């Protein structure tokens, strides 16, 4: 493609000032290879001038046989900016943990230079590689080149979305299970659900290796799998002493910030009452050389996070307090199947699983998916007396 004529972007140019790297500069860079970017700049400048977006509500576009992975997008001023008349986004499954080789990156760049704007998001906030802006007719060829090179589309609409994972065992000493493996396995197992929207609404899965939750799974995933441990925190007393010697105020910064106050520090020895520890990670975070998660590792499975539209935001809530690492994959898959079955049967259109559980009640949901209620599922038992006693059983 040819480099297009210069257009005037006085407002956007202001965003090339200042120390933080500029997305405007990026768009300008991409003009070298894509004239779409000229019209993108033009339309964006217009938005900046008018204080309003100029994209139309997306239509249904995509690649053959897939029901998702592409966000259709059209300009509402195509007469002014014909080269962004279409400006669809392609979502592409990221490799687990967002690891790349330079070759893989270049392959992606080459494909996208050929078929689209040359603009990406690395990454979208669900975790996908985002190819930002192309025309309808480029979608299928681009897709074919992607799969030929080992990449595939992510989800959109009422489909499962590409699961994501924290860096986990690849570079983190705290990973309580193999987040990358689980993320990859789930992505592969549910390719069909990813590509052919079968659900009442979207379904997101995120795998975090420990309660620090570096993929924000508890806030942003319908299914949140968060590593934890069952036995005692591994403790190295000499290393604790070394931290103290280096100036860590163990009483104030560690002991006093423990949410259960289950630690004691006598100035020389740190004692943890592990039975009271809620695995919050704080003490470990402060003294990574001295304290480590226990050896009996696994994960807590939580369900139901989502953004506020429309019944209010939700954080995921505890479904299974602890699954040992070796049972994790099987348990998660079995659970997912049962949850989806229930959702399929009872979910209303555009009702996320977290909303459905609230609507039907956690207890009914547990019954349906065959889990026993345990007190770890609630922050407290009910405080209202409105119990739907069952008529069949338990009477007098």
């Amino acid at each position: 493609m040819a480099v297009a004529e210069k257009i005037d972007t006085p407002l956007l140019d202001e965003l090339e000032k200042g120390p933080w790297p500029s997305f405007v500069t990026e768009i300008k860079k991409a003009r070298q290879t894509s004239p779409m970017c000229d019209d993108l700049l033009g339309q964006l400048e217009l938005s900046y001038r008018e204080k309003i977006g100029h994209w139309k509500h997306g239509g249904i576009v995509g690649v053959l046989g897939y029901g998702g992975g592409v966000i259709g997008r059209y300009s509402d001023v195509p007469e002014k900016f014909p080269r962004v008349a279409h400006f669809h986004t392609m979502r592409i499954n990221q490799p687990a943990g967002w690891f790349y080789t330079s070759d893989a990156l270049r392959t992606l760049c080459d494909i996208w230079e050929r078929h689209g704007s040359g603009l990406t998001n690395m990454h979208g906030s669900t975790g996908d590689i985002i190819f930002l802006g192309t025309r309808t007719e480029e979608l299928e060829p681009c897709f074919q080149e992607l799969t030929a090179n080992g990449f595939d589309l992510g989800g959109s609409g009422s489909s499962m979305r590409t699961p994501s994972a924290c860096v986990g065992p690849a570079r983190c000493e705290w990973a309580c299970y193999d987040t990358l493996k689980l993320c990859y396995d789930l992505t592969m197992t549910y390719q069909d659900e990813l590509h052919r929207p079968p659900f009442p609404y979207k379904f997101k899965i995120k795998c975090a290796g420990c309660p620090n939750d570096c993929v924000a799974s508890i806030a942003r995933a319908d299914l949140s799998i968060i590593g934890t441990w069952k036995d005692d925190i591994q403790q190295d007393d000499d290393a604790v002493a070394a931290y103290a010697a280096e100036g860590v105020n163990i009483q104030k910064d560690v002991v006093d910030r423990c949410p259960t106050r289950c630690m004691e520090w006598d100035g020389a020895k740190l004692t943890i009452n592990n039975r009271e520890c809620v695995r919050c990670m704080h003490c470990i975070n402060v003294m990574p050389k001295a304290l480590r998660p226990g050896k009996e590792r696994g994960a807590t499975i939580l369900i139901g996070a989502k953004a506020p539209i429309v019944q209010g935001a939700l954080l995921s809530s505890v479904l299974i307090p602890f699954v040992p690492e070796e049972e994790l994959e099987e348990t998660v898959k079995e659970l997912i199947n049962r949850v989806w079955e229930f959702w399929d049967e009872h979910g209303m259109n555009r009702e996320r699983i977290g909303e459905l559980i609230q609507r039907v009640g956690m207890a009914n949901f547990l019954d349906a998916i065959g889990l026993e209620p345990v007190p770890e599922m609630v922050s407290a038992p009910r405080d209202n007396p409105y119990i739907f006693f069952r008529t069949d059983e338990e009477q007098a």
Partner: protein
Amino acid sequence: MSAQPAKRITDIGPPHYEKFLPPIIKKNYGKWLYHERIAPGVFVHVAESGDRVWTVRAGSPRLLSVQTLRQIAALADKYSGGHLRFTSRNNVEFLLDNPDNIEPLKRELQEMGFPVGGTNNAISNVVHTQGWVHCHSAATDASGIVKCVMDALYDHFTSESLPAKLRVALACCLNMCGAVHCSDIAILGVHRRPPKIHHDALRKMCEVPTLIASCPTGAIRPATVDGRQSVEVIEAQCMYCGNCYTVCPAMPLNNPDTDGLSIWVGGKVSNARTAPKFSKLAIPFLPNNPPRWPEVVDAVVNIVNVYAANARKYERMGEWIERIGWPRFFELTGIPFTRYHIDDFKHAGLTYARSTHIRM
């Protein structure tokens, strides 16, 4: 779904991550012992084997051209054996097995205009969304505000001097793709007028029952307009959520005169110390003022400064506010408390102060 052409490849998923792991990572996979800070943007992980891997993290505008990606790839080739990764907050990480590469890599990154930092108690990258660059629903731009805010917070990215991590996020409409609902500081685009109804388009493009059902407050009612079936919106019942627009393109909410931004504070995701928390309303409305959004930038910087000056070590924004109480937060930041701060949604009653615990 329709049949696929013979050789068309589908449903292969992403490449296996193992193919992309640096050798030192592969070798020590799952066997890391601990990590240490080296400098802002640089830390080292030590494995059981004694191996070490140094990570250098650089801030990114997230919206990246293939040109820049290729530059990044070239840096990886030069310094980290052709390996790199991105973080869950869209930064770039180079994983080095040789600490001598740290300084040259940092220098080259800085020359490229990519700041090194974002680790530990820094302000890392802003998780954000599309805005006017790509979304139809946006009440504001995303990347533009992020750029302005990060310009102002730049020194907090390249240093680690805050009491704790401070996560900033931005979403350009109430759909909240930026997951701003659990951020230390969240910037949220808001509409403040009910949708305009394009009756002709509505008849063509939208199902009226679905549309009516989409409104959480029941503000949309069937109506006859020019003798034909359409809908009307009871303005007093509309809370500008945009859900109707999501299901029906003929109900746009965008309005250059009244769209703008709101600021939310005190959310968190980690389970460290306290349970994850939602962000709470700090400032209901600030104007859309491109290209540099000074009001938003000032508001964010003010909150960061007051937090930095007052919070205790290891206290996230929300933990600090819970300790000092919301009245003190409003006092210290000088932000006025208004009727909009008082919740009136589903669980509103639970946010009324139901004790006499009051600082006088």
